[in-house]
């Protein structure tokens, strides 16, 4: 574990990292390696969607309504042009999935980044200052834990709808989603960091730094952060999966992204309407993509938690 927290201090850190317990447990778990591979490939595919996708599903010039609901290529009535068939607006499903995955990952990563920054900062503040600041922040955290993330995100969405005129809603849908997710997930980070900060605060070096007038908060941050990197990384990984699920759910519920900029959730939502008429592919392929990606991320998160937990070794 020490190898990964302070690799830069040693010139041969790469060699040491390759010999570390984490790397070893990674190598000895084929499932984890497979999951990492899936995450990597899907992330790259999403990132380079414009280069890989046969068509741009957002470009009206390439989308024709007469192509709507075409089944996958290998089925009766399939069109060689559309590998996985088309959705209700005639968009190539394969391309739509790539672009949708891109949107989902973007929202997940940025949302979690916001949550993490917010949570770590508030956790440090609460832990360091203690007293009223601490109880105020942690009370908010407690209250927020009352509500599942999805409910928080729904509420924020509802409030934003109330505050803004409907015309601008589509433009800011992305921003609203990201902020909702950020605000819905900060508590875990704050709790973890606060705990660690409280421990460090009692240490002698902090008292010493205070006595000689050094900037104790800065010193502490330098000591606290390495200690929480492990747990925060685990939360981060699992949260990316959760955030993507939350986004998909919100979009499915019709309060996320509009159909014009579909995420995986939007695509599933569209497909759900056609499930009964037998057009199973519109819901199935985005569904599989979403499940596979989140499952892989969760596998990585699970592995990371076990690998960083010294008790299990």
């Amino acid at each position: 574990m020490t190898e990964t927290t302070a690799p830069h201090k040693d010139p041969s850190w790469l060699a040491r990292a390759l010999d570390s317990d984490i790397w070893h447990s990674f190598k000895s778990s084929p499932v984890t390696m497979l999951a990492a591979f899936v995450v990597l490939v899907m992330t790259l595919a999403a990132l380079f969607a414009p280069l890989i996708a046969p068509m741009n599903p957002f470009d009206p010039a390439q989308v024709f309504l007469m192509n709507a609901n075409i089944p996958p290529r290998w089925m009766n009535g399939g069109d060689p042009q559309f590998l996985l068939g088309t959705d209700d607006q005639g968009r190539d499903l394969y391309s739509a999935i790539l672009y949708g995955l891109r949107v989902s990952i973007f929202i997940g990563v940025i949302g979690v980044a916001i949550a993490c920054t917010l949570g770590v900062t508030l956790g440090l503040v609460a832990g360091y200052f203690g007293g009223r600041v601490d109880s105020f922040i942690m009370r908010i955290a407690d209250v927020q834990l009352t509500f599942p993330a999805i409910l928080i995100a729904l509420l924020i969405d509802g409030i934003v709808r109330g505050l803004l005129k409907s015309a601008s809603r589509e433009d800011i849908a992305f921003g609203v989603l990201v902020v909702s997710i950020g605000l819905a997930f900060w508590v875990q980070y704050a709790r973890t960091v606060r705990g660690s900060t409280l421990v460090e605060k009692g240490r002698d070096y902090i008292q010493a730094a205070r006595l000689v007038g050094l900037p104790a908060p800065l010193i502490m941050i330098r000591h606290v952060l390495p200690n929480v990197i492990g747990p925060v990384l685990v939360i981060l990984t699992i949260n990316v999966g959760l955030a993507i699920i939350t986004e998909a759910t919100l979009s499915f519920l019709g309060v996320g992204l509009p159909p014009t900029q579909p995420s995986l959730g939007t695509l599933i939502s569209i497909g759900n309407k056609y499930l009964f008429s037998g057009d199973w592919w519109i819901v199935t392929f985005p569904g599989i993509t979403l499940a596979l990606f989140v499952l892989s991320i969760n596998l990585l998160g699970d592995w990371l938690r076990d690998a960083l937990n010294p008790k299990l070794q």
Partner: protein
Amino acid sequence: MLAFILRRLAQSVAVLLTVAIIAFAMFRFVGDPVNQIVSLDTPAEQVEQVRKDLGLDKPVYIQFVRYIGNALKGDFGQSYQFRQPVTKLLAERAPATLELALMSALFSLIVGIPMGVYTALYRNGFGAKLFQAVSLIGVSLPTFLIGILLIYLFSVHLGWLPSFGRGQVVKITDNWTTGLLTLSGIKALILPAITLGLFQMTLIMRLVRAEMLEVMRTDYIKFARARGLKTRVINFGHALKNTLVPVITIAGLQLGSIIAFAIITETVFQWPGMGVLFLKAVQNVDIPIMAAYLMMIAALFVLINLFVDLLYAAVDPRLRATIRES
């Protein structure tokens, strides 16, 4: 004991008050409540009258007190969409949601705890690995996708179970209907309950597993082994009892969130509950419903919390002792 309950009550009130402030702020400042009630051609003096009726001409803190007072009386105002009292709308839909939540909670506990125990005891066995894999898939699949999957399999493909609605319901009292007394009601409940409970089930399973593994490492379990107690007694007496103590708390809180999670399941299965009402409220910015729902979830959470604390005290003699002392 009394002091303990009182302290917990004070904390609960603090939580409720915080949520009430949020709810009130939403009600008051997100959109103008007056505009929602009057129409464009309402005369100005009538608009002013409505404003007065709502007490919006008073200082904000008086409005807040009034809001709280009304809320305590069960009055959360009128829904903007339906022009009906929010309380009535929620009460009509409460039985459907509570029934669904209760069934999924039972499902998740009855299936989740044994699975967790099993995976902890035989953690290297094939069954445990299978359960672990299933649970990971369970937390990775969004609830709505599970619902869609179940509908496709059991409703569209096999045609065994209905895909929407509550089936035939029976009226027990004036404002309580149940689907549990008719065959179609029970059949309609199965898929939504599983959908809603699956995620909680996997959480409970993983929680029980983690706790049990932790307990199996403790000295008192080692000592129990050293005393030659039977494996069954150690596993299902000593270890399980100690495992379930912390599980009670977390499971309790998880179950509280089932009601909120029901929003998704209700949408997928067009279940006529409070969740669908709340979602419609969000889509149409029906603030009174949103605020009331928020308060209701918070109150429910507080209640469950209190109940869990008491249960905890009943199970753990150490806590009982500290309570008695305080």
